[in-house]
């Protein structure tokens, strides 16, 4: 436990010391939030209703998808995981500690967004705070699992960027962050359901913001947790401390199993 706490304390401080992580965790989501608040609300007044959940979802998704996979790939290529392996750092800790510290940073960012959107833009506050926190946690779990899995299965930084963008760009377009789910045509709605932000926005609207959900809000929470936990478990299973390691437990293609909960969400009514 002491070792884990020590590891956690060091990684948390790194998140503040490292300029790139500081930018990804704090500056980028907060600057985007301010830009969207000052510009998007004028263009589309309906955005005011969802500025808090959509910017929280954006902050979590952007920081984790851009930060965690890159961290995993570069640390592996730099031999850091080899050194951890030799010194007995468990693969679960190698992946969980940076994820947990990113979680703390993103909860702080989410609190800043939630606390300032009212005074700055007259945005409505959540009507059910415990549910708001629960959905934010579910989104964190989902995105941590996916981000860590991308890092673990990517053989290079280029590949990792490509996989991250395959999730990030459609999520921004159809995930309910920029456009409400019910504005989308039926085909796009089906596609949207395989991306975590759709479920986070659906659950925020139905359980925390006092608006109606487009489909089962509790079902979305369950999918977010299930999808995140499954992806994280797969990441630990497929973890590779070195590209040349021949004792890997499974082929990276097994990561496709992580899609199952999201595909199952098509059945949610």
């Amino acid at each position: 436990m002491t070792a884990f706490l020590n590891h956690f304390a060091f990684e948390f401080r790194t998140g503040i010391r490292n300029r790139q992580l500081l930018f990804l965790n704090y500056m980028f989501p907060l600057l985007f939030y301010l830009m969207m608040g000052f510009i998007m609300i004028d263009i589309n007044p309906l955005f005011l209703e969802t500025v808090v959940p959509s910017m929280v979802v954006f902050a979590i998704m952007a920081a984790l998808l851009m930060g965690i996979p890159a961290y995993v790939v570069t640390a592996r290529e730099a031999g850091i995981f080899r050194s951890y392996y030799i010194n007995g750092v468990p693969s679960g800790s190698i992946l969980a500690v940076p994820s947990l510290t990113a979680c703390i940073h993103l909860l702080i960012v989410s609190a800043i967004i939630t606390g300032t959107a009212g005074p700055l833009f007259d945005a409505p506050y959540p009507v059910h705070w415990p549910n708001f926190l629960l959905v934010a946690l579910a989104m964190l779990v989902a995105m941590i699992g996916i981000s860590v899995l991308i890092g673990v299965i990517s053989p290079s930084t280029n590949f990792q960027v490509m996989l991250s963008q395959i999730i990030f760009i459609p999520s921004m377009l159809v995930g309910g962050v920029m456009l409400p789910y019910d504005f989308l045509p039926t085909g796009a709605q089906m596609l949207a359901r395989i991306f975590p932000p759709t479920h986070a926005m659906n659950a925020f609207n139905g359980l925390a913001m006092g608006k109606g959900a487009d489909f089962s809000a509790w079902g979305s929470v369950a999918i977010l947790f299930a999808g995140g936990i499954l992806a994280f478990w797969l990441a630990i299973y497929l973890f590779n401390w070195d590209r040349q390691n021949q004792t890997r437990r499974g082929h990276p293609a097994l990561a496709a199993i992580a899609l199952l909960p999201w595909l199952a969400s098509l059945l949610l009514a």
Partner: protein
Amino acid sequence: MGQPVIEVREFIKRYGDHVAVDRISFNVHRGEIYGLLGPNGAGKTSTLESLEGLRRPDGGELRVAGVDPSRDIRRLRNLIGVQLQTSGLPDNITVEEAMRFFCAYHGVRPNEGLINRLGLREKRKTQYTDLSTGQKRRLALALALAHGPEVLFLDEPTAGLDVGTRVELHAIMQEQKARGATILLATHDMAEAEQIADRIGILLDGRLVTTGTPLEITATGAGLTKVSVRTEKDSLAREDVAFPAVQRMHRKDEYHIFFSTDIGPTVAAIIQDVNSRGDRLIDLRVERPSLEDRFLEITSGENTR
């Protein structure tokens, strides 16, 4: 000689079709420093990494302090200390944090004394990325030693270091040997190996071509003694120069270098030749073959045992 702590038997390591290590066998005994030498790609790092549990052997048997590294990595971790060739530390970790971090996972208290002993006291709060090459190497060694391992694996520990730091690291290796630690050292540095290793093994194309003490290895070569001569008028710079017992010769800067099988007649003939041509000796050196000479002899295929 003590009991073997590192045992390598018929060890094979392949990467696809390429055989990196081909049935090598050697033992390292308790309290011994064993130097593994060889050109790039000879199989040194593959051997070390397999003994450290990082790679799985494709044949043969490995034992480190009685543990099979490919089967019992958990037990092995507290028995060995490893200084990797690459840094293996995050850029933003400080010296103090790195010591606390690794000691915590080994279940021991941070060894602040080692930080001080290795001259890193003033750098305790400095991030890894801001340390010099020498300081990084010293930190890597401090981390490898912090939990008092029985066996140390050092991969090019002094590469790129200044003379003072090398001497300091050599002294620390000798201290570890004195407390009973067994050290397997992979290096390109012949002088280092000759100076601190009790025994040496030379790897070439994945095969262990020779092993023994530095003296044994240098003595098993072609037996040529090197005679280096410099004269005032450079009278030895001519086509027809020939002396008894000289096998080969070449010129390096202002010196003529002769390799002789019988030093007495060679030196006498050189002096006589120089004097007879009205020239004068400025410098004449007789040197036994160094480990480097023997290594070059082996790697160029002139003589292997």
